[in-house]
């Protein structure tokens, strides 16, 4: 049995872009391309199925971006991002010292990235949420949240997110009567959401302002927020102050 090969995944929505990477990898017999994926959903599935050690991940893809994919698959594999031109993404990679390739991809740069990825294999790359946050244009907020259920990926547009509840290491995202669990801290979720639309009403709760029907007093120094679907959420004193100033701003 020959020495163990490094399993790799190529993720790009453009056939020609995948071809370039495949060709560049051809001179590396120690690397075996396990699968090629044309979109993020396939990538999430392929990662679960093949457990690759190395992933070439395009940033701009339909529906699920490279950052979304990273967020969903965790960070066990070495990831090399590939992007054509995205000033914010490039800045994010630089800041977090993540390896990336710019299209068109040249042989020399490719070899360097590969060599680095090999030495760093098994090393930690920063949490995907941090990377994605750094790659967002200034003043741009999350437009949807991605959640994985096994290999099923759900996209929740923020307009359909009713509220989020912190549950230990997870947040439960409530949307249209359903709850989705996601491994994320409520603070990092809050940081990505538009503060004009979402407000942290409690240590454990973020609410979509559009869903709040009224606020009721509840015991001393505490209140309840009643949502359109009848859900009752606790509102802390600090949360009430934030909520009130936001509602006052809106008039």
């Amino acid at each position, binding site marked *: 049995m020959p020495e163990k090969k490094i399993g790799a995944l190529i993720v790009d*929505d*453009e*056939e*020609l*872009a995948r*071809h*370039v990477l495949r*060709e560049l990898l051809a001179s590396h017999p120690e690397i075996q391309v396990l699968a090629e994926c*044309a*979109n993020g*959903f396939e990538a999430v599935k392929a990662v679960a199925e093949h457990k690759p050690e190395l992933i070439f991940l395009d940033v*701009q893809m*339909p*529906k699920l*971006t490279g950052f979304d994919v990273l967020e969903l698959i965790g960070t066990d594999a070495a990831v090399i991002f590939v992007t*054509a*031109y*995205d000033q914010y993404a490039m800045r994010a990679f630089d800041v977090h010292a993540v390896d990336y390739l*710019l*299209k*068109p*991809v040249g042989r020399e740069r490719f070899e360097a990235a590969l060599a680095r990825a090999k030495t760093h294999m098994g090393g930690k790359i920063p949490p995907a949420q941090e990377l994605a946050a750094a790659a967002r244009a200034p003043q741009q907020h999350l*437009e*949807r949240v991605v959640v994985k259920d096994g290999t099923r990926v759900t*996209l929740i*547009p923020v307009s359909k997110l009713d509220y989020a509840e912190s549950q230990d290491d997870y947040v439960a995202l409530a949307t249209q009567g359903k709850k989705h669990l996601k491994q994320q801290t409520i603070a990092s979720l809050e940081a990505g959401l538009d503060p004009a639309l979402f407000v942290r009403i409690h240590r454990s709760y973020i609410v979509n302002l559009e869903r709040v029907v009224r606020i009721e007093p509840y015991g001393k120094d505490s209140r309840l927020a009643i949502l359109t679907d009848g859900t009752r959420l606790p509102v802390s004193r600090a949360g009430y102050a934030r909520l009130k100033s936001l509602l006052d701003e809106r008039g």
Partner: protein
Amino acid sequence: MHPFLTPINRFGLYLLAWSPLAAILTYLMAGPGKLGWFRSAILIIPLCLVYQFVCLSAWYSCKAAPIQRSTLLRLALTHVTAAAIISFLWVEAARLLAYVLSRLPSLQGLDEQFAPQVPVLFGAGFLLYLLSVAFHYLILALEESREAQSRALETSILAREAELKALKAQVNPHFLFNSLNSISALTSVDPAKARKMCILLAEFLRMTLGLGEKTSIPLSEELSLLHHYLAIEAVRFGSRLQFKEEIQEHAKNFLLPPLLLQPLVENAVNHGIAHSMEGGVVRLAVHCHGGRLSVGIENTFDPESTPFRKRGLGLANVRRRLEARYPNESTMNVTSEDDRFRVELSWPAELEEVKA
């Protein structure tokens, strides 16, 4: 140059304004004294003729002491002193004139009759000069505000031109790098196709460079640009990109601002195709009726997909350019329903550039 002397009709108006002044002065001089109407007029009319020119000199002292940058005391001192001196000289000239005129047999005794009126004339000269000062300040202020207005207008026009120029030169770097990546892939897979794409890209870039100079181009030129663009994107997206067009043949000669439609088609491709896994259709329709050119650009899109780049900016730029070119005569409607995004534009159909 003095503002009253240059346009001849303005100078005439100034002289005319002096006639009632001369008449009033004649009346004042004739009234209480022994000087009759006739003798007063004979003395005053030449005096006023001279004095109206003397009063024009206020312009120079007004310019030397701008009202905003001088203290009130200085202004008062300057002008009062000038008024006193000038009026004094004028009165002395009047005395001389009266003396000379009184040599004439028919005007004997004029100088004696004039002597008691000297303070009246001095007062009148003093006030007239100050009036002239006030009037000149008014003119200066008017001129300044008019100048400021035209300066503001000029800068706004310059700013708009610069802005439009910047808007035109907008080949998306993302498009460029992705195309180069496709070419790089094709060099080994299909060298002939790689070369073809290089040429398409070069032609596209050449066209966009040339267009920056022009204010209008025929639709046929913009279409050729769009076809190049779409041919390049078709290599990237393969079967995901479908393009359908419906162009009225005779509409192709009408004019439009260059690169007006390209960003819209690019938007359609980016949002309709690049963001959809299955791809979609981009439709372009151009019609001409009722003296107006109407363009519709439509793309299918995946309603569940959210764009990584907003399309608002591109649309706003197109709207601004269209409005700048055809103020109040252009329309732009953006509609989005179900899985269809549609931009409709219309503007007056023009065949040849109207030379201003």
